């Protein structure tokens, strides 16, 4: 039996030892990026709302225009930016000739028409119709009263017009969103329910090689691309747990990885600092105040609460500098952003509360989803508020319950996390404070003056427009105090040596200029 011992150990570890061999090597021009993209379940941008899907789809598909990281709009599938009628409702587009989809067919106006009809066809179950439902005939299509979009007219193979129901200044910016990428009619119809799962064809610099939901998107350079061809041969976007992705990066198996703010500290050290990229985002983390739920129906109380926030303390002690304190709802880089001062003053809070009839302080109820990162911020504010006689009870609930409550307008103190969809102040104001949508974010702000300014903002252009939003933002934040902006978020990425050309477009990355020189 004793002789059996070495043999037994041999058997036990044969399972492992047989595999100790050299690892595979990758080709020289393969770019591999990973993050825990929890929502990367498909590539059809009509069927998801999150950045995860847009990130994986954007190397493959393209919209009519492209917006650079400074917010400037450039023609992409167009010869030039569209001509706009004097009243701002009719746009005439001319497609660039010779643009090929990955299946070899040429982009025509009929493909654009198909895409726009698909966007509003109820059978599509598009979750992003809100972006562009100002196009004439969109409501009728969504309600099943029309089969085609009244506001879309094909003039010839390369020319078409889009008519809006009413002027909407950010319309061109909307056309640059990932959700508006142009699909090829033939390929999309042939793929049927497999579109975005096994088949996904666009005009982008990369063509889809393989997609496995929640696992990997693998694309190869499209040799027939209408613009400057991609410099890398292959692109992989992996779905990976954060710690796994960081290990893979450190082992040299990834070229780039996004690093969550709560684990970034060890990567700010000398060893990794040269590879760490910080991206300040056009986004906002803010604390809304529900004007339907006393005592927040009193503007003096709302003002008091805004002085109970120590933004610098939050940024310094809890967020470790991973963000930028702000007191403006519109982030830097977007028209009408201002550097409004903010003040942390517990004594002023107590005094304002006493004036409002609450000398003994107030109690507020915040609800946060257990999956929200901002849940931790709420707990920090809870501690800060104690010095001001403001008790903030932080209730953690699951995502489904939280969304139900927030949409019903039942959260007294809801927290907002918002990254821009379009680089426009409308995206940070109308969305939350127009009377038709404020309940969804639990501010319940229904105010004729706000609605009127928002409508004027949508219909105006240029400097006049910026003035409207400056006035509006001041009215909401500084006068009515329905929201307390907290900070603008940041993302971090680790980028391997030898990698260049990644374009950081807010929360999205663009890979068409990536170069690897290892």
């Amino acid at each position, binding site marked *: *039996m004793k002789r*059996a*011992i070495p043999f*037994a150990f041999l*058997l*036990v570890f044969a*399972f492992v030892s047989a*595999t*100790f*061999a050299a*690892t*595979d090597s990758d080709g020289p021009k393969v770019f591999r990026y990973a993050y825990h993209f*929890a929502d990367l*379940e*498909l590539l*059809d941008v009509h*069927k*998801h*709302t*999150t950045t995860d899907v847009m990130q994986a789809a954007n190397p493959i598909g393209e919209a009519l225009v492209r917006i650079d990281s400074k917010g400037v709009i450039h023609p992409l599938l167009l010869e030039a930016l569209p001509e706009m009628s004097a009243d701002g409702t009719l746009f005439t587009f001319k497609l660039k000739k010779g643009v090929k989809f990955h299946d070899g067919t040429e982009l025509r106006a009929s493909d654009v028409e198909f895409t726009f009809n698909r966007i509003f066809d*109820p*059978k599509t*179950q598009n*979750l*992003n*119709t*809100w972006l562009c439902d100002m196009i004439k005939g969109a409501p009728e299509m*969504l*309600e099943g009263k029309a089969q085609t979009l009244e506001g879309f007219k094909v003039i010839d193979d390369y020319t078409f017009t889009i008519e809006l129901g009413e002027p909407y200044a950010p319309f061109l910016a909307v056309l640059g969103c990932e959700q508006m990428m142009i699909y090829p009619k033939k390929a999309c119809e042939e793929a049927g*329910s497999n579109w*975005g*799962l096994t088949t996904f064809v666009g005009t982008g610099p990369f063509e889809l090689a393989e997609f496995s*939901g*929640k*696992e990997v998107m693998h694309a190869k350079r499209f040799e027939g691309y209408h613009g400057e061809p991609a410099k890398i041969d292959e692109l992989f976007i*992996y*779905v*990976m*747990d954060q*710690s*796994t992705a960081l*290990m*893979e990066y*450190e*082992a040299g*198996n990834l070229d780039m990885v996004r690093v969550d703010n709560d684990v970034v500290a060890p990567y700010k050290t000398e060893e990794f600092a040269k590879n760490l990229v910080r991206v300040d985002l056009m986004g906002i983390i803010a604390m809304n105040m529900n004007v339907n739920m006393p005592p927040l129906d009193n503007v003096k109380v709302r003002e008091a609460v805004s002085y109970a926030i120590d933004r610098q303390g939050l940024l310094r002690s809890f967020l470790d500098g991973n963000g930028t304190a702000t007191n403006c709802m519109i982030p830097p880089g977007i028209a009408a952003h201002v550097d409004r001062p903010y003040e942390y003053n517990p004594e002023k809070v107590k005094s304002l509360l006493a004036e409002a009839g609450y000398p003994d302080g107030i109690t507020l109820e915040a609800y946060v989803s257990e*999956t929200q990162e901002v849940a931790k911020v709420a707990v920090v504010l809870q501690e800060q508020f104690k010095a001001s006689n403001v008790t903030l009870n932080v209730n953690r609930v*699951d*995502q*489904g*319950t939280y*969304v*139900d409550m927030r*949409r019903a307008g039942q959260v007294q103190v809801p927290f907002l996390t*918002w990254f821009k969809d379009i680089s426009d102040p409308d995206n940070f104001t109308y*969305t939350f404070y127009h009377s*038709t*949508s404020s309940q*969804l*974010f639990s501010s319940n702000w229904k105010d004729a003056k706000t609605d009127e300014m928002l409508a004027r903002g949508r219909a105006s252009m240029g400097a006049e427009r910026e003035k409207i939003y400056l006035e509006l933002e001041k009215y909401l934040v500084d006068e009515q105090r329905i929201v307390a902006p907290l900070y603008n978020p940041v993302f971090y990425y680790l980028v391997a040596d030898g990698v260049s050309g990644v374009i950081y477009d807010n929360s999205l990355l663009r890979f068409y200029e990536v170069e690897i020189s290892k």
Partner: protein
Amino acid sequence: MDFLLLKFILNRLWQAVVVLVGVTLIVFVMVNVAPGDPVAVMMEKKADAATIERIRQQMGLNDPLYVQYWTFLKNSFSGDFGNSYFQKLPVRALLARGFAVTGSIAVGVLLFSIAVGILMGILAAVFRGRSADRLIMLVSTLGMALPSFWLAIILQLVFGLWLKVLPISGLKSFKAYILPSVALGMIYAASLARLTRTNMLDALNQDYVRTARSKGAGETAVVVVHAFRNAAIPILTYLGTLMKSILGGSVLVETVFAINGLGRLLVDGIMKRDIPVIQGCTIYIAAVFVLMNLVIDLVYGLIDPRIRAAKES
């Protein structure tokens, strides 16, 4: 097949149907009484009430609950659990994909657990009270105490990052199965080692072992043929339990290794209120439990003549 066995199988299959129908009812009630509208979760902040209502209508979520349940029950019997609200794929296809992944890891876990657990258990019993026994019991205690996901990360660090001999994540090659199998299998191997040791000690003290030794049988033959065969029944029961647990998937280990198995499928479904996925996964897990119990009962009879005789009498 003898009549009694056939009757036994049919009886158990009938019970399985009753259990599964009960499971469909409980799951349906639970996912529908739990707060959280799947469409609101799906659209998060980006849609008004009218849009949500329209999408709910298109997805059939506004039908009366009894209609929804009947449709679900009827379709379930043909294995059609509908399409995932988020992944847009048939749940059947997602289950098949998840099962292929989880099942393949289950094979690795089973091989690892049996190889390590039984071997270590036998060795500990044979060398009872000596250093080898104490070492094996210490390691098995540790193995039972270590959380799988923690062990997974340590294995990734050691074998993937530092030694660079095994893949850190994914399931692209045979080698990639090793770390998940070890991480998941460690707790089972440790339990199996302790269980095997206990049963082997009991068997080694039996009269038939003494008889075998007195007849001059070799020590290996005594241990493997005479003692282990009789110690195998409780071990078999444990293996059945082990299979049931493994085939349900492990969300933590699957997440750590970036594997799309059944554990992740179910937990993601719950988090997002993806009702078809929750229902499909739950019925699958219930079916695995029912089936494995049936298999264990049948195998008992095959390997142990005493149980077969009891059933016949």
